[in-house]
């Protein structure tokens, strides 16, 4: 069974620069495969949750938990699972990697789509029903278009966030099994093993080019196109721009695609599904379904309690005691402290800079794309440079490894603050100037409350990403030198390396718990407060 896997290891990654384009292509393809999978799940699961109350009761709480689970912790299980499905075949590992990236992308996309489906304006739903569109036509003509702006934005965020994971998931080692899929991530881990700094530099360069290309050629045109689905009835103040989109527009390529699309959508929408007779939008409720509903609910609770009991049993079988759990809890608290402290430090640095930049439109045009680019850039590629420094100066890993967990995610704070300052009403700025509001009072009363909702969004994203990053940032190596900080991330990473499933599960569960509690105790109240503050409720 291990035969072909050994073969896989026998064709190792070679650090030849001529191989890099190929590796970059593989990495990108994995990424797009995952995003397609995410989109598929979005259209099916979110639609199901929005249309069926029973499905909603399962899908929505499940999503809430799943998006709090550290994705990198999943890797151990998915690799084992998919390798079992395709014994000794590279396909299993390949699918495991794609699945890992998918788990980093899908949840917020599904949520966004579900939210949109639930908030389709009433008058449009009425118009659709009045003109007798069937469910199929309503989905494509009304619900999907309405959801597009949110979905495009969330897909972009997912893409940005998941370059990090594509790099981390290509070189996987679970227990004694070590796999390197051809790609930039494997190149990087080989380079680290060989202490080859030039190769690390090349990986950085390649990644930068890849991200630049995907941003310019895929996402900017899509964002420019999706602008027409924005609900704002007045022409939007600033249209998103894309030179690629403009060229396609001018060369009439868009017109061509549009005509093709028209024919296609005409065919699609003229499919006559065997539909029931048109239903009223608000029918009189009947109570005959109540029994089935309560049975369904009972079944769900049964499943939930059953799986909790199973988990307890599983932990007990793995020799995990209360003592182990409290130890892991303490590790979790250390990582929690690290995450919060770093979010605070990053805020102290980036909020003032963000405000400074945001107030100067010319600077914004220059800096905003760079910040977005940096947010998409997989920070784990940069880890070796910092690790070398720590090794060289023999610094304390508990302190100096910490910045790594926010290295990639601090940019979310930065560009959200810039965005907040940009939309801050000009007349308020002018009023503050006229009444001579300056220095401390200006920060305290004018700009900070104004950008608060944006800041919260940024900080929340940064913190969420940092938990994930801790799994690969608290244990790092350079050649044979291994550095380790105390924390839950290191615990999960070590358990993965030794292949101890019980410990991995415990670590992942503990981290999810921390994230969920944090979400409900800190981020959600802050979010509501911010919404009230600016009257966006």
């Amino acid at each position: 069974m291990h035969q072909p896997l050994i073969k896989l290891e026998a064709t190792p990654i070679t650090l030849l620069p001529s191989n890099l384009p190929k590796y970059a292509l593989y990495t990108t393809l994995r990424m797009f495969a995952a995003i397609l999978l995410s989109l598929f799940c979005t259209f099916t699961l979110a639609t199901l949750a929005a249309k069926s109350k029973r499905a909603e009761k399962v899908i929505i709480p499940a999503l809430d938990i799943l998006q709090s689970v550290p994705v990198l912790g999943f890797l151990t299980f998915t690799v084992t699972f998919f390798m079992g499905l395709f014994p000794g075949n590279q396909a299993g590992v390949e699918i495991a990697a794609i699945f890992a990236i998918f788990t980093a992308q899908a949840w917020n996309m599904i949520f966004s789509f579900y939210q949109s489906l639930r908030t389709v304006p009433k008058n449009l739903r009425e118009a659709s029903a009045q003109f007798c569109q069937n469910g199929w036509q309503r989905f494509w003509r009304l619900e999907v278009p309405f959801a597009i702006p949110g979905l495009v934005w969330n897909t972009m965020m997912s893409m940005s966030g998941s370059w990090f994971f594509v790099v981390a998931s290509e070189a996987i080692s679970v227990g004694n099994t070590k796999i390197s899929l051809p790609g930039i991530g494997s190149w990087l881990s080989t380079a680290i093993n060989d202490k080859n700094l030039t190769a690390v530099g090349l990986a950085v360069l390649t990644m930068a080019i890849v991200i630049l290309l995907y941003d310019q050629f895929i996402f900017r045109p899509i964002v420019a196109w999706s602008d027409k689905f924005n609900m704002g009835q007045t022409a939007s103040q600033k249209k998103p721009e894309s030179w690629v989109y403009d060229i396609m527009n001018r060369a009439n390529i868009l017109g061509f695609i549009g005509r093709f699309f028209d024919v296609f959508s005409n065919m699609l929408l003229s499919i006559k599904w065997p539909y029931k007779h048109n239903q009223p939008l608000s029918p009189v409720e009947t109570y005959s379904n109540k029994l089935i509903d309560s049975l369904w609910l009972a079944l769900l609770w049964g499943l939930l309690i059953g799986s909790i009991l199973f988990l307890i049993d599983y932990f007990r079988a793995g020799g995990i005691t209360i003592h182990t759990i409290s130890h892991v809890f303490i590790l979790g608290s250390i990582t929690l402290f690290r995450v919060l402290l770093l979010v605070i430090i990053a805020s102290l640095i980036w909020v003032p800079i963000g405000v400074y930049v945001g107030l100067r439109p010319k600077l914004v045009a220059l800096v905003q794309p760079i910040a977005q680019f940096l947010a998409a850039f997989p920070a784990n590629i940069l880890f070796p440079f910092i690790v070398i420094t720590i090794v060289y100066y023999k610094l304390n890993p508990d302190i100096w490894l910490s910045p790594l967990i926010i290295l990639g995610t601090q940019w979310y704070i930065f560009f959200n603050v810039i965005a907040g300052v940009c939309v801050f009403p000009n007349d308020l700025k002018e009023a503050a100037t006229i009444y001579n509001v300056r220095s401390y009072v200006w920060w305290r009363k004018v700009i900070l409350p104004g950008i608060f909702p944006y800041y919260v969004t940024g900080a929340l994203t940064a913190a969420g990403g940092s938990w994930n990053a801790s799994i690969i940032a608290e244990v790092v190596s350079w050649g044979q030198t291994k550095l380790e900080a105390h924390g839950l991330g290191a615990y999960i990473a070590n358990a993965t390396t030794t292949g101890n499933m019980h410990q991995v599960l415990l670590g992942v569960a503990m981290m999810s718990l921390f994230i969920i509690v944090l979400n409900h105790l800190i981020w959600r109240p802050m979010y509501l407060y911010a919404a009230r503050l600016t009257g966006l409720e």
Partner: protein
Amino acid sequence: MQKQHCIVEVKNVSHAYNKGQGSDIPVLDNINLTLYEDEIVCLLGRSGAGKSTLLRTISGLIQPTQGEITVQDTKMTGPREGLAMVFQNFALFPWLTVLENVELGLEAQFVAPDEKHRRALKAIDMIGLDGYENAYPRELSGGMQQRVGLARALVIKPFLLLMDEPFSALDVLTAEILRTDLMDLWTEGQLTIKSILMVTHNIEEAVLMADRILLFGSNPGHIIGEIHVPMTQPRNRLSPDFRALVDSIYEKLTSKEGQRSGKGSAFPGMGIGMVLTLISTNILQGFIETLATTYNGQTDLPTLSETLRIKDEDGGVLRTAETLQLFRFCELDGADVRLTNKGKEFAAGNIDERKKLFHDHLQTYIPLAARIRSVLDERQHHAAPMSRFRAEIEDYMPEESAEITMKTIITWARYAELFAYDEQTGKFYLES
């Protein structure tokens, strides 16, 4: 009048909103009406009387809790072809061009692409939108957007056109032009439509267009009367007949029969369960001031309506007058309105005197305000959560009404300095 072919028949229809638990809130009460071929019928009544709900039950969008609706001899069980609706806020799809919006209904009927295109262009041409086929709704003015709404309705060749306050979101001039255009199409027989049913709260609009006006009373919605309009089209607003009819309708709508409960009150619900309309203190003051200075304390509503031009979203003249009657600052008698002595005192007062008067009357005549104040007085810290009162009044009214009622109480109490409200904590409190 000979017996004509009947298009719509509404029999004993009642409807109530289900609030999940507790009591249902009745919106429509035992409605009976018949719509015949070749007539325009207007449902006329105050905002929130349930006219739009009735229109939606006829269209099939809402299934009434009781009663039966028959359209062309078929019982309604849901939306169906042959009925078209024009919406108050247009309800155009912002991502579709004018042409695509118009084609929408045809697409749902699986009309072949060529045929669909041809018919849509014809409808666009008829309604005066040629040249705008490829524009998006956001590029058009309100009047043009409603033309698209009309074209979209006409293109499916309906036999019944339902219109829900189609002109009320437009400015006066644009509404007039669009109304005239529609009436021209109707009288010239260019339409396939056999009958039009329109909801409006604009009395003049109803008298301008309708062959028959059904007056709608509120709480819960019920029909209080029927008026035939014998005048020929086009009608002249300034003719004495027209004016007389408008005045008599004002009178009927403000009369006590219009309301079912609460000793002749125009406001549904009693005691703290009274549903209030949010009318700003500025408009209340402006009304009293104008009535006092320009009309010497007494005039009729149609005249005042012309002078004040209170926008519908701000409550309208009638609702403002009724609210001031609730405060005992003025009295309504038919279409006439006059200031009470207290109202005159208010008009003559300075800022502080006005506030004092408003304070007293708010506490005396608006039970909910009195109740909140007395709870605050009793409490040691003089604070109480708004949600508590909100939950209390939600036993008597739907959620939306409760929200507006709360907003109204907060606005008025702030002006009167009866009590204060902190939005962050969601609490009422007394300022020391």
